[in-house]
């Protein structure tokens, strides 16, 4: 099937999927919040043999999930995760969705309730290219922030520093951090040179 091939090849081209897959144990149970067309779950299923569910609000995306053969629950993340039992997942993933959530604090709390561990990825607002655009007097527009200021869904952008402080204040214990720029992991001055951030965390015990 032509569509299947194109989805798989686009997965290979997505280093952020690989970064998340690296954080996930084989055979685990995964919940993907704001799962889009389901291609991350599909990728994790194919590469990590996970048992996964996605949550998605958009009709077109839900339909794409159906086509991808992914379990998807059409629901608004903003109204909570009440369909999901406490501790019922190994991982709950929020992939490049954090910055578009209105009730960020509630959602992170809910993530820690339903899952043993949480994985969050987001575009680092502190990335030097973003800083440069602001210095030049304009809101950043880039591969990971593709919107103009007037049409962006991103209402809660943050830097690595912001997120780590947030975790500290909200009882989230960071277990692993991967900062990426394209295919490369960034270790030197990540808040400046990292474009995408991946965090694995758990509820502080």
């Amino acid at each position: 099937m032509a569509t299947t091939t194109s989805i798989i090849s686009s997965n290979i081209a997505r280093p952020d999927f690989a970064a998340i897959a690296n954080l996930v144990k084989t055979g685990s149970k995964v919940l993907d919040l704001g799962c889009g067309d389901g291609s991350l779950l599909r990728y994790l299923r194919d590469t990590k043999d996970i048992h996964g569910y996605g949550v998605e609000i958009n009709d077109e995306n839900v339909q794409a999930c159906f086509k991808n053969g992914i379990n998807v629950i059409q629901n608004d993340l903003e109204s909570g995760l009440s369909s999901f039992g406490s501790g019922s997942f190994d991982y709950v993933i929020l992939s490049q969705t954090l910055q578009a959530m209105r009730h960020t604090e509630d959602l992170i709390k809910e993530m820690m309730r339903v899952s043993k561990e949480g994985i969050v990825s987001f575009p680092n607002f502190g990335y030097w290219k973003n800083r440069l655009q602001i210095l030049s007097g304009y809101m950043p527009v880039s591969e990971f922030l593709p919107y103009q200021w007037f049409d962006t869904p991103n209402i809660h952008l943050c830097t690595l520093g912001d997120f780590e402080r947030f975790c500290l204040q909200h009882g989230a214990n960071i277990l692993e951090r991967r900062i990426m720029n394209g295919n490369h992991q960034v270790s030197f001055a990540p808040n400046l040179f990292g474009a995408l951030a991946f965090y694995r965390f758990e509820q502080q015990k």
Partner: protein
Amino acid sequence: MQDLASVGIVTSQKVKFDNPLHLKSGAILDSYELVYETYGELNEDKSNAVLVCHALSSNHHVAGYYADDTKNIGWWDNMIGPGKAIDTGKFFVVAVNNLGGCHGSTGPTSINTETGKPYGADFPMVTVQDWTVTQVELADYLGIKQFAAIAGGSLGGMQALQWTLDFPDRVRHALVIAAAAKLTAQNIAFNDVARQAIITDPDFYGGDYHSHNTVPMRGLRLARMLGHITYLSDHSMAEKFGRELRNGPLGFGFDVEFEIESYLRYQGDKFADQFDANTYLLMTKALDYFDPAHDFNGNLREAFSAAKSDFLVLSFTTDWRFSPERSHAIVKALLDNELNVSYAEITSSYGHDSFLMGDRYYHELVKAYMNNIIV
């Protein structure tokens, strides 16, 4: 989606089962007949069968039309056919009139061999569980060991659910559309008003109206009018009828004035002409009794621990008879059991009846889901 092909001319078939059927109520039927239709071809390893279960007042005529009655199109014809969401080019679709019905399967209008008269009110109460047992008999008769999918809307969705609990190895996928895991008090209340309309009709004669050569038309008509209101949404009624008058100005009387009155009376009359009152009573009771969690102290999660199938659960935003919250409860129980489930809430203005409509998103979802079923 309307331009897609129909399954064309169909014929109903009938099969008689002579092994005694022990009903949930304790009653026993020594034998019974089921009338059914099939569309498409059963493949060699019999892995492509789909059972379609019907709702309260519908029947086994789900798709296509009859050679001698071309206007009588199946009630889910927009969903089932070649190239449609449930593709008869891929699947062998089976649809059966439920036991207790009035469209050919053994029911209150059938002749009771012991008395030589129609069963009437003597026909035993049937439950959703009883129906699945009879549907299994039909599957055995057709040589189907396992259905690729069982699909139904409303009461039909409840049957699909029941299958996954009672015969988990015989159904791979359940499509549970505009359904609920049990009725609410409000649902039961509506059903009882409908039943009271029938039972208190002077022509009902305790259900023995056939002996009096009459039928409780007024009761059936009221029952249907009430039911119909609950199947529509406030919005769709307002949009379709508003406060339009048939012939202005106001008549200051009780004749039909508003279009909605005319519509409901027409629907009521049409229904009362073709549906059996005792069957209506039985079907509403089957709805009221449906509650798979009952034997598990009301715990739906435990009730579903027996299930193995994959599930598609769909609800409609304006359905207030079986609201999206009712589907959420089903989804939660399935998730708690780590079963494969997809759920979508379809934006539709048509209320409970939405499941019969040809909404594009709705049909695309069913199509995508069915496409992924391996046969």
